[in-house]
């Protein structure tokens, strides 16, 4: 039986962590003070802005925690607390998107009313299932709640008061759009301002800023990065423990892998400076990881979380729904039960169809976005129907040919990527050249992709991992990148701001996750036992 850590020790660790964060925050603020950098992006009243932003983070955290509370026995308390802020933020944003899509006036009260309805439904369902008791606090859970809440509030305060207020052109655009939704109540003005189909998820954090009365939601996006990194670490630790490593080794190895991800310049840069990439990369990553967990453990909570993150991914970049459709096609060839996949695909189809229909009802006549054109929207929506039909037919008649069908799916994807690319060879050459130069020099990735290649060789040669659920997502995503770049009108270009760099960011957490687990599988105690 494992020895439980006394609550006092945990409390002291927490106090130490909060003190360290506060000291770090004060130091950073004093450095920034000397260089007169404070407040360059956060408005005139820096302190009031920072306090309001801290409060908004606490509210979002509590919103997520309330939603997740009935599921804590299935998810585990640590995961609930790590997910709380992410779920709170994304729930706020998905409800906001729904309100805007349904052409209801977008206000803070409207969002909270829908949120309340969602909570009532969730708790009613839990009570209906005979889990009413589980909804109440146990004494031992009270301390955990207090510690996590104070810890998150301290991190929120530090991130709000430390002026990580770097503006990127995306952030400025998103700031303007988000505030416009909040003040106008609808997306009408979006069509005057919008420049390339800015998606909702990154934009709406600035609606939150407007609702809570502060200027620029930099701390919200920075905390999103922090919590995603911690959740990444949680999942990798969980996987390592499942391999048979003891808790201490699992903690050390997961810290190493999380460090590999977290100290990368470009990871921090995109996380802090270019909001959409952070949202797209992590919503996609968690959607896939929870699907992977579901395929293994078949816990409904995992597929629900996967769906939640995938829906958020659809709103985190304009090409999101298309990418999600291709991932659904891939999932159709895994061992996930097809009935659940049909619900999943159907749910995404409803969301996407609703969004596209509403978009064109609200947009002025003749409006066409860079990606959001009527033709493309119809194609994407149709893709969901075709994939749904494919899942149904495959399950009914062709399940024994899964391997062949998967080969055909990959072949079709390759054919699509090559076919679309060769239609404009000049553009393809520029794209490949720019991407290559960015990976190895201009994109500020520095040694990242060299390290991925080095560890990739080791992983390929030593791995004893038996399934490749997540591994396949990397080449599928790379092929989709080629397809998207062929479809888009502009070419890639060198330097950090390039969209190729940003899309590569989407698979970087996948690469670290996959390589770590593949390499560790060779040294896992369970494999050693089998080998001996």
């Amino acid at each position, binding site marked *: 039986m494992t020895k439980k850590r006394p609550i006092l020790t945990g409390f002291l660790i927490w106090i130490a962590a909060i003190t360290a964060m506060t000291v770090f925050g004060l130091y*950073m603020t004093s*450095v*920034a003070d*000397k*260089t007169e*950098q404070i407040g360059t992006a956060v408005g005139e009243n820096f302190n009031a802005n920072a306090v309001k932003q801290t409060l908004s983070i606490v509210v979002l955290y509590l919103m997520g925690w309330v939603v997740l509370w009935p599921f804590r026995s299935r998810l585990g308390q640590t995961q609930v607390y790590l997910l709380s802020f992410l779920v709170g933020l994304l729930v706020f944003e998905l409800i906001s998107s729904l309100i805007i899509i349904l052409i209801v006036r977008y206000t803070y009260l409207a969002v909270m009313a829908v949120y309340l309805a969602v909570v009532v439904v969730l708790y009613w369902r839990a009570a209906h299932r005979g889990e009413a008791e589980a909804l109440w606090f146990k004494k031992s859970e009270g301390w955990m709640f207090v510690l996590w809440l104070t810890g998150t509030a301290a991190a929120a305060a530090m991130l709000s008061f430390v002026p990580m207020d*770097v*503006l*990127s*052109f*995306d*952030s*400025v*655009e998103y700031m*303007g759009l988000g505030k416009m939704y909040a003040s106008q109540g609808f997306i009408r003005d979006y069509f*005057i301002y*919008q*420049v*390339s189909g800015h998606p909702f998820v990154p934009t709406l954090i600035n609606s939150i800023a407007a609702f809570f009365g502060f200027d620029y939601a930099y701390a919200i996006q920075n905390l999103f990065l922090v919590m995603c990194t911690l959740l990444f670490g949680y999942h990798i630790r969980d996987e390592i423990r499942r391999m048979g490593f003891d808790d201490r080794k699992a903690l050390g190895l997961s810290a*190493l*892998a999380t460090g*590999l991800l977290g*100290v990368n*310049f470009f990871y921090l*840069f995109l996380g802090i*400076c270019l909001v959409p990439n952070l949202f797209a990369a992590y919503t996609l990553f968690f959607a896939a990881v929870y699907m992977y967990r579901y395929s293994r453990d078949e816990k409904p909570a995992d597929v629900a979380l996967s769906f939640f993150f995938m829906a958020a991914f659809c709103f985190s970049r304009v090409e999101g729904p298309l990418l999600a459709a291709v991932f659904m096609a891939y999932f159709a*060839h*895994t061992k996930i039960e097809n009935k659940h996949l049909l619900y999943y695909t159907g749910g995404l189809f409803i969301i996407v169809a609703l969004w596209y229909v509403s978009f064109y009802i609200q947009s002025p006549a003749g409006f066409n976005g*860079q990606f959001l054109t009527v033709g493309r929207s119809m194609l994407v929506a149709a893709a969901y129907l075709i994939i749904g039909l494919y899942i149904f037919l495959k399950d009914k008649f062709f399940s024994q040919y899964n391997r062949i069908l*998967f080969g055909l799916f990959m072949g079709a994807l390759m054919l699509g990527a090559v076919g679309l690319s060769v239609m404009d060879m000049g553009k393809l050459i520029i794209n490949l050249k*720019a991407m*290559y*130069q960015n*990976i*190895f*020099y*201009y994109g*500020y990735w*520095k*040694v*990242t992709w*060299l*390290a991925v*290649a*080095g*560890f*990739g*060789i080791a992983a*390929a*040669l030593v*791995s004893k991992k038996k*399934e490749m659920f997540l591994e396949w997502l990397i080449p599928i995503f790379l092929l989709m990148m080629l397809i998207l770049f062929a479809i888009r009108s502009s*070419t890639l*270009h*060198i*330097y*950090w*701001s390039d969209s190729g760099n940003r899309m590569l960011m989407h698979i970087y957490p996948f690469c670290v996750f996959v390589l770590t687990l593949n*390499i560790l599988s*060779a040294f896992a105690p369970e494999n050693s036992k089998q080998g001996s």
Partner: protein
Amino acid sequence: MDNKRKKSNDKTGLTPARWILAGALFLFLLAGTYTYVFYTLNSAKWAMLGVLALLAVTAVIAAIVMILKKKAKLNKALKWVLLSAALGAVLFNAYLLNSSYFVPHNTTTVFNRYFPVSLETSVKLQEYLAGKTLILDPTVTYFDREDDQLSAIAHSYMASVKSSVKSIQTLEEPYGFLTDDDLAFLKAKTDEYEMVSWDYYREINAYFFYNVMDSDDVIVLWGRQMCMFFMTPETFAELKERPR
């Protein structure tokens, strides 16, 4: 994919697919090393030496692997080598984050200093446009649909210079996007402009300033290749006089 990895019958237990993947990644590593060293040190000679060094290290590793395999100590050694490599990668990346490598400009705010290019460009824009009246073409103001990326960039840099300019106005009569002829005309006036750019590749995100230092009013237009043009009313008049 839920299929199990195929086992081969050779001594290594590795499938051909895994050898091919490892080989492809090795070629990627070689090419990357060459490129990385070439651009970092601006020398083909050093880049070639880097590749040779990598090949030599690979040969040494292969020899050590063979010896350890014979002595059945491979697993333990490999474990420590990979752990050290991972730790080394973390430390090296952390070093790069904190080194002056990413601090080409003189600002000490910890996170701001990682983003030299946009700040540098902002500083340049502010320097050129301080105290002047900007007169924007309406396409700049209202983000016309023809060039999405440019409008985003324009908006952000306009936002960054707002505090330093005297005022921002809009041209009464829109000029619109610069045509190829306009661009050729403007680019021919190389003796009159200074270009501030973060990316010279295909002239993307470039900023051309036409003698604006001595003028109170600055006209702002843009071209299709994500270039912004800042010019005096006189240069703008010359441009307009030409048939479009």
